[in-house]
């Protein structure tokens, strides 16, 4: 999973305008890797939420910082799946604060992490090996994964 060896790797600077660029890439990649159009659309949403969170929360709106997206077909416990890794160079992020809120209260905000967890089969935030940023690893199975209900 080291940088530079993914099947597809995108690096963009943290401009909100480039979210659309990443979405176009992810949508086509997801379909080429076997997702139907509807599932590809959900995967796109999850990646978009993850990147927007890096821009807003990680980089505090700075527009010249790097974000990497790596996409690879993998086996997840024997099942065909696709792995999406989002990586940043954000310093000092408190991983414990990255969590979804209960949805019973209707208020703006606090939906992104929920969406990511709902769409993906596996979601794992960790500090980058070199300590200089956050790596979000998301896995979506081609079949059978489905969107899960309930908080994870």
């Amino acid at each position, binding site marked *: 999973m080291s940088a530079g060896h993914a099947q597809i790797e995108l690096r963009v600077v943290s401009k909100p305008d480039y979210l*659309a660029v990443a979405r176009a890439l992810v949508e086509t990649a997801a379909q080429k890797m076997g997702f139907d159009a509807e599932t590809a659309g959900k995967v796109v949403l999850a990646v978009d939420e993850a990147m927007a969170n890096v821009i807003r929360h990680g980089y505090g709106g700075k527009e010249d910082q790097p974000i990497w997206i790596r996409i690879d077909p993998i086996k997840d416990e024997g099942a065909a799946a696709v792995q999406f890794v989002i990586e940043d160079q954000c310093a000092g992020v408190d991983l414990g604060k990255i969590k979804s809120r209960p949805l019973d209260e209707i208020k703006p905000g606090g939906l992104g992490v929920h969406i990511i967890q709902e769409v993906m089969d596996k979601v794992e935030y960790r500090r980058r090996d070199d300590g200089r940023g956050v790596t979000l690893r998301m896995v979506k199975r081609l079949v059978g994964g489905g969107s899960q209900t309930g908080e994870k």
Partner: protein
Amino acid sequence: MAKSDASFAGSQDLPDGVVATLAGEIDYSRSPGLRNKLLELVAAKKPARLVLDLSGVPYMDSSGVATLVELFQAQRRANAKLVLFGLQPKVKGIFEIARLNTVFSIAPDLEGAKKA
């Protein structure tokens, strides 16, 4: 670069309020501009019924949803209505994931939204 308020495509008066037409992909690059436009509109018109035409919106992320929730709360506080219509499949999808599909008042078309 694309204008940040490009998601707001105009508005028209109704007997009891206003219809605003949204357009394009509403993501984090667009929703702050859209939010400003819609809050301005609500402040200017104080509509008893605010209808949002989403038929030209193929995609929305949680920043767009947050804007709609904020409007929903503002209208509710003012004893006024917010009605949406013209939802495309991906927009329906995020409302479902966010469990808002039963919270928002959603009409099938403009006629329905005028009466909802």
